[in-house]
């Protein structure tokens, strides 16, 4: 769409800007402030330059948390995106069944995150949880508080349970926007099911899939409440992700300088990834417009 160049549009943006700036810039500057100082008391603080940043980047515990975070995010993306597409393809398209399935599927998305943790903590307990009890009955020695592998599988299962609906819903709405005529044309060509998916449905889904991957990546990168309630980061620190390390450091140990430096590094990583995504989306839209124009 051709947009009119008009700087008075700033007036429309202004109220939003004031609010978001209050919530974003003031706290961010506080973080920056802390990250370069050593705060010893109310009036005793020293400028330390980049010392905290160096400490944090060389901290093996944080490097491990970062690695775990990346493995976790990639794993859940690799499971949730194909699974979400699959579910979207088999969801009923109309009638009361469609409404019922929609409501059921969105259910996990609307549960507070720490309750999600509680649900899975209860569900996987060996004594009172259906899944933990069931696996023990089958003779599997399943214990998320002692076995790191079990804890990982459970956290990934929980995240798949919690967030696959988002991918499925996005894909479902993408599929719904494909005109029936496309399918008719494909049937006339005797296109196979796979060909219909590959050349009609998937191209139409790219837009929503970009949104899905973006949302899923960033939420998984900031995951905190669910693993915190479910495993508490344990056993040991095998399921401690970035958010939790940061919170422990900032709130638990009151290490303001290092945790502020850590916050900034954390934020910059997310910033970098979002910039890559943003540029990719913008280029995709540009391509589309130029194709439409030609």
């Amino acid at each position, binding site marked *: 769409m051709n*947009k009119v160049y008009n700087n008075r549009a*700033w007036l429309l943006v202004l109220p939003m800007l004031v609010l978001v700036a209050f919530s974003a810039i003031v706290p961010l500057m506080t*973080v920056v402030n802390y990250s370069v100082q050593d705060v010893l008391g109310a009036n005793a603080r020293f400028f330390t330059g980049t010392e905290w940043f160096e400490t944090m980047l060389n901290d093996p515990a944080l490097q491990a948390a970062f690695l775990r975070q990346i493995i976790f995010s990639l794993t859940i993306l690799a499971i949730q995106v194909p699974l979400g597409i699959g579910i979207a393809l*088999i969801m009923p398209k109309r009638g009361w069944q469609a409404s019922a399935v929609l409501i059921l599927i*969105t259910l996990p998305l609307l549960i507070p995150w720490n*309750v999600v943790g509680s649900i899975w903590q209860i569900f996987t307990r060996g004594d009172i949880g259906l899944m933990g009890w069931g696996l023990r009955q089958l003779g599997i020695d399943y214990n998320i508080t002692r076995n790191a592998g079990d804890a990982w599988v459970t956290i990934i299962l929980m995240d798949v349970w919690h967030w696959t609906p988002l991918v499925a819903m996005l894909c479902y709405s993408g599929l719904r926007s494909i005109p029936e005529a496309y399918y008719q044309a494909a049937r*006339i060509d005797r296109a196979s099911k796979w060909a219909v998916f590959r050349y009609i449905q998937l191209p139409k889904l790219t837009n929503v899939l970009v949104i899905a991957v973006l949302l899923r990546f960033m939420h998984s990168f900031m995951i905190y409440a669910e693993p915190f309630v479910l495993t508490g980061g344990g056993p040991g620190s095998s399921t401690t992700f970035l958010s939790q390390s940061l919170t422990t450091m900032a709130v638990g140990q009151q290490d303001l300088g290092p945790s502020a430096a850590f916050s900034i590094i954390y934020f910059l990583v997310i910033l970098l990834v979002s910039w890559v995504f943003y540029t990719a989306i913008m280029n995709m839209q540009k391509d589309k417009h130029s194709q439409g124009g030609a």
Partner: protein
Amino acid sequence: MSYQLENTQPGEKYNTIFSRITPAQRRKRNARTRLRSRLLLGIYLVLMILPIYWLLNMSLQTNSEILGSMTMWPENLTFDNYIGIFTNSSWYMGYVNSIAYVLMNMLITICVALPAAYAFSRYSFIGDKHLFFWLLTNLMAPPAVFLLPYFQLYYSVGLFDTHIAVALAHCLFNIPLAIWILEGFMSSVPKEIDETAYIDGYSFPRFFVKIFIPMIRSGIGVTLFFLFMFSWVELLLARTLTATDAQPIGMIMTRTSTASGIDWGTLAAAGVLTILPGILVVYFVRHHIAKGFALGRT
């Protein structure tokens, strides 16, 4: 966009003259694939519901039954856990607090996001792309980064432990999200509508309220759904910014673990009650979410 092929009935999706298989065979084949996909969907739904069912099951049992034996359904049905929550003000105030700050946040967000999204979808202005990107980065800022500064900021301006503090804090990610969603919906409304309205003598505010907002009604519905969802489920910031007067229910739930062990029944009942508002909201927007989840971008 749709057209009818020759030699077909309206509603029939298949051009029969090109087909080698008979309609009866085709119907049978379609029925078989339909059945298979229904079956797969059914399995997924059952697996998905199971953890929630387990919570519900536990909430209807006494603690001795929960701990005593594995029962697939409550054998001595009891509502004591729920009654306990509804008769204790320190419990039910948690729900009131949560709902209060979520509603405040939805109201604030939608009021400032509507004009801003309009500006982004219709005008180009100095720094618009940078501003939009900056907004998106806020959507991605991990709440953990902001915990401590938020606490200090709201404490120093005297808003600590109030509903409005949580509502404002949640604006950090909800305003960018709302603008992102609304911008998609607004861009799908042709610009000619704006121009015609201005030629007809509508002023901007009147056009916006009388014509434009009704046109993107379903977009606004979907946006409100997302705002509710992300404000309702977030607890890290809400927990940090409150102490007693505005404490969200998710925080009060941690009280169930006492020295004498965990009160599983009450914990489960409180958990079930946190799911209910969500179901209510989905029910209201069920006709829009199918389309709206694409955020106007298909």
